[in-house]
């Protein structure tokens, strides 16, 4: 239920049109505005540590973390760990997409299928994913298989519910149009259902991408599956806090890059017509 609430609020957020500016928007300025709070955060952090308000051992200054991170970029182990996590996560999301999307389209189109399946899906979705973690590690061993499956389960629900919502919202007239022109079932799917739900699918994937990081890191930290989470945990345990921070920063950079490049581009595409 909580998940559903988050989803609906996210969907509503997407539907809100961007604020209309009376003056012509400053293109470049608007594009870099987001840097200001982020930069201030790092400056304050740096200052707090430099002024001795926080111990260097507890939290190294960001400048130092950046240097460590730059060093790490040439380090094969570090890169392979990051890549490992990222692959587990991406494969997990795709597995979820390939199961959730067809299922959501079925339940979205056929009310009877929806009434049959969705309550069960909702119950499963409201269970905490973490509860399954030890079981999956027990069944599949502490490796990529368990990580990918956990990621897939976590990604399944946001993708399923957003796409189902999208299919249900397709106006009945669209189907009448397809019938008037005698479109085949396949054409209805390809030329109406899929494009009509595309915006929702993008939202679902974006939510899934945010949710899945948590579970992938959790399995790496708790079950010691190899990946960036494992590296952060290991660094903290062995006392190299800078490395742990470098790992966290790497995750942040990846998340931001994917968000801007992949989802930003997809949403730009959707915004042309919505």
């Amino acid at each position, binding site marked *: 239920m909580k998940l559903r609430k988050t989803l609906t609020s996210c969907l509503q957020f997407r539907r809100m049109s961007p604020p209309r500016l009376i003056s012509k928007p400053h293109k470049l300025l608007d594009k870099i505005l987001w840097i200001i709070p982020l930069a201030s955060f790092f400056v304050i952090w740096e200052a707090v540590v430099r002024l001795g308000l926080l111990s260097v051992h507890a939290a190294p200054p960001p400048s130092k973390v950046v240097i460590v991170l730059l060093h790490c970029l040439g380090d094969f182990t570090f890169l392979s760990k990051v890549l490992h996590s990222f692959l587990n996560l991406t494969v997990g999301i795709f597995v979820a997409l390939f199961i959730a999307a067809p299922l959501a389209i079925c339940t979205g189109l056929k009310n009877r299928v929806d009434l049959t399946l969705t309550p069960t899906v909702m119950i499963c979705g409201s269970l905490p994913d973490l509860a399954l973690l030890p079981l999956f590690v027990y069944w599949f061993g502490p490796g990529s298989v368990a990580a990918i499956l956990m990621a897939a389960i976590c990604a399944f629900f946001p993708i399923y519910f957003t796409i189902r919502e999208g299919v249900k919202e397709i*106006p009945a007239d669209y189907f009448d149009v397809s*019938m008037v*022109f*005698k479109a085949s079932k396949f054409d209805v799917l390809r030329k109406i259902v899929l*494009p009509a739900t595309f915006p929702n699918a993008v939202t679902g994937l974006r939510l899934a991408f945010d949710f899945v990081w948590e579970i992938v890191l959790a399995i790496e930290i708790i079950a010691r599956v190899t990946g960036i989470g494992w590296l952060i945990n290991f660094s903290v345990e062995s006392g190299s806090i800078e490395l742990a921070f470098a790992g966290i920063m790497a995750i942040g950079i990846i998340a931001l890059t994917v968000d801007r490049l992949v989802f930003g581009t997809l949403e730009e595409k959707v915004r042309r*017509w919505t």
Partner: protein
Amino acid sequence: MVLHMELLNVTKVYPSRSMETHVLRDITFNIHEGEFLCIVGPTGCGKSTLLKIIAGLEKPTSGLVKFQGEAVTEPHPKISMVFQSFALFPWRTVLQNIEFGLEVQGVPKKERREIAMEFVEMVNLKGYEHAYPKHLSGGMKQRVGIARALATDPEIVLMDEAFSAIDEFTAHTLRKEVTEIWLKTKKTFVLVTHNLEEAIELADRILVLTSTPGRVKSLVNVTLRRPRRRGTSNFLKVHRQIFRLLKEELEQSLGHHHLALHHPNLHHVGHSNYFSF
């Protein structure tokens, strides 16, 4: 005129929990080839349902719809439709929307593009062919809807309240253009509307339906010369004639639901400040 489409005793019943609702009862009339037929009737008389049955989108509970002598049980490639809500696909440009019918009917890309461009010009949307529907006004959207309906070269174009969701000024222009298209293409047009002036302006014949359940009240021939202008004495004469028919229906249905007027909620509304001058 050549007999084009026949409706024989078309009845539509919707089953509901407590009782069956008769939407249409024993509708029998013909549609002639090349005519402009308008269907008018009080709200909720099943006009739109009737149009959907003609389109093959809905099946009559009993009765028969025949097109060129053959029973219509599903949409026919020669029967096309324009929707009140426009029903354009927002992810398709104007041109792609117009192409939709041809596309699903397997017309090669180059050919359907040429045909679509032809219709872009016919509905005066040149310059907008690559715009998305969100950038179009209501009137322009309906032009796309009309072009899409015409692009598959139908013999009958069904229009469900096609001008109702457009502001009156634009609708006025669009009706003129539709008349021109109708005269030029010589296709059969069937328009469902609740706007009586609109029906008189456009129609060769007007089918007046009774209130629920919809039956054929009258089929009125409109012999006014075109282009028709509202406000001329002949126009008003036809208007009065049909208005009387509709008023009869309205009064009858009010009499029928006489009890509803004494419903406490309605009573309350009747005494609210909005109604006391």
